[in-house]
């Protein structure tokens, strides 16, 4: 009788896949072809099932919320006044939840999907509030800037491990940059010219703090990780 080279158990003649590991019993480089059969694989499947159940329940609840809002609006004012705005926010919550549940391990997709959903929600809100007024000059660039800074953080996290005090340090730098961009966009929308004030104060306050964090991380703690620093 053949012996599975992965598990070392004897199999009956003719078994092409080992029922224990789900792999070809004679091929050392074989990928699992059969059903997952290790305790940890079952746990992974269970976590997927739990996420699916949570998504189904949330979908029922959120879409019931939309229907209730629309009905109440329709029955009280014989038309739609506030319900479309509420529905847009509920839809946004549903899209973000869906992305978070099913794309957690793909941060770029999660980030891009969330940005598109937020932009769509802002555009719809502006539209329902009486036409496009603030979305294009303010909502779109500020949202895009926020996600751009988040993407930069993600990019550097992949290149340089941001897992110690350098993580809050980088976060503070990006917050400073985001504040400046926001003030520029708001200034252009409101006055048509750039006059940096509060964002400069924020930046000069955050910069030294970020430098202290970087210094502590790279010189004093020699790259110690946050999880060991706050180990309980």
């Amino acid at each position, binding site marked *: *009788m053949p*012996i599975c080279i*992965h*598990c*070392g*158990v*004897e*199999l*009956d003649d003719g*078994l092409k896949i*080992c*029922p*224990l*590991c789900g792999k070809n019993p004679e091929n050392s480089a074989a990928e699992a072809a059969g059903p997952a*059969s*290790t*305790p*940890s694989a*079952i*746990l992974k*499947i*269970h976590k997927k*099932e*739990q996420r699916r159940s949570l998504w189904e329940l949330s979908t029922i609840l959120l879409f019931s919320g939309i229907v209730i809002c629309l009905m109440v609006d329709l029955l009280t004012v014989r038309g739609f006044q506030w319900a479309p705005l509420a529905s847009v926010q509920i839809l946004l919550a549903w899209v973000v939840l869906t992305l978070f549940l099913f794309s957690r391990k793909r941060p770029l997709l999660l980030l891009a999907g969330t940005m598109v959903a937020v932009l769509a929600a802002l555009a719809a809100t502006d539209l329902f509030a009486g036409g496009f007024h603030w979305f294009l000059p303010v909502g779109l660039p500020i949202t895009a800037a926020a996600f751009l800074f988040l993407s930069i953080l993600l990019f550097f996290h992949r290149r340089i491990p941001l897992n110690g005090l350098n993580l809050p340090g980088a976060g503070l730098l990006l917050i400073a940059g985001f504040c400046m961009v926001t003030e520029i966009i708001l200034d252009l929308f409101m006055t048509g010219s750039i006059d940096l004030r509060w964002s400069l104060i924020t930046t000069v306050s955050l910069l030294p703090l970020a430098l202290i964090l970087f210094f502590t991380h790279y010189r004093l703690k020699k790259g110690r990780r946050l999880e060991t620093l706050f*180990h309980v």
Partner: protein
Amino acid sequence: MNGENHISAPGGRSPGENHLSALKKKGWLELDNAAKLYPAIVSSSLTAVFRITATLRDPVRYNALREAVTRTSARFPYFNVSLGSGLFWHFLEFNQQEPRIQAEEEIPCTAFAITRKNEPLYRILARGNRISVEFLHILTDGSGALEYLKSLLYTYLTLCGHPPGDPGGILLPETPFSKEETEDGYNRFFRKLPPPSKSRKAWHLPFRLNEKPRLRVIRAEMSTKELLGVAREHQVSLTEYLVAVYFLALQHIFLDSGGLKKNRKNLLRIQVPVNMRSKFPTRTLRNFSLFVLPETDLRLGTYTFEEILLSVHHQMQMYSGLKEIARFLSSNVSYEKLFIIRIMPLFIKKMITAAIYRGLASKRFTGTVTNLGQVTLPPEMGEWVTALEFIPPPPNPKVKAGCGIISYNGNLRITFVNITRSTDLEKVMLRHLTRAGIRVKILSDT
């Protein structure tokens, strides 16, 4: 086997079989007193899963194992259950599912997906010439799991064409079912007694935890005869001797890490499970064990090994006596009988239980030493089953380490479970054993 099974009831079935069919008709079982704790505290790292492994002479034959599992599981139907949630208590629901036969992984005692529908609460693992059973403590304790494994091995060897001889007390598929097998021993032998005195919090190992997955296992094998000889020289039992060595290792680490300090817990206490079936007349295969908690107060000074041994011996003798253990049992069961606890919604009960466990119960002892004792199999089986091993559940992050002991075929195996980066505990303990003249062999994973 209990005599009741041999008296036929009306309809030609034994009372045990009638009880079993009534249970199946009812469709569920209440959790025993010990099991009620686990749903509140189990997690992916604190799994409450233990493993017993049998090493065979030949590689495992999958098809024979599959058939043996089917037959053995039918004999132990009360293990074919999954965990259900009621409004006030969890319960065990019959699910007609056989346990999964899975490939043994590197990290033992992986968690069960207990909230998954129809998820079995025990599993069979195989790799090379090893067959293991892993049970969630909600289902049974080490003795119950050992009965299952013996039955599985007997049936497996029969199917492989290796006649395993007279089964003796092994429960086989054809052995009549006894009503006692499913009983809750804690409730049966409960009587209201004054509670034991409250214990102080114990000192804990100061080591940092491993990266996830945290559990690391070290196995050591030695001759039972040699160890028993040394224990007898000191006029103590084998368990008492090993508990004393564990205390000595803890004291060594305690002194190494700074010793006696003000405002520090200076008490070493070891949790030693006691099989209650040896104290009370029952054949239950569900949880029926309690603990003895010998301690060493280091405020009184440093102890020599002889002093520790003497203290452990007397404490173990005293606390494992029927009266003291009955008092402990009474204290545990009386909580679940309180009206306010019974009507408390399950989610609140779980939150309170988890908080009490994390805040109090897990801090009461420094380590755990679980001895499953001497296992005997029919001599014909002994030719095919070369070794047995017991891996206790992973320790909690406070206690950090523990060990399981099992003796079989003239050999004793100590399995250390440790979630820290240090191996000092194992090192000091095993060095002491070798200095006592016992030959110790460290085993590899396979």
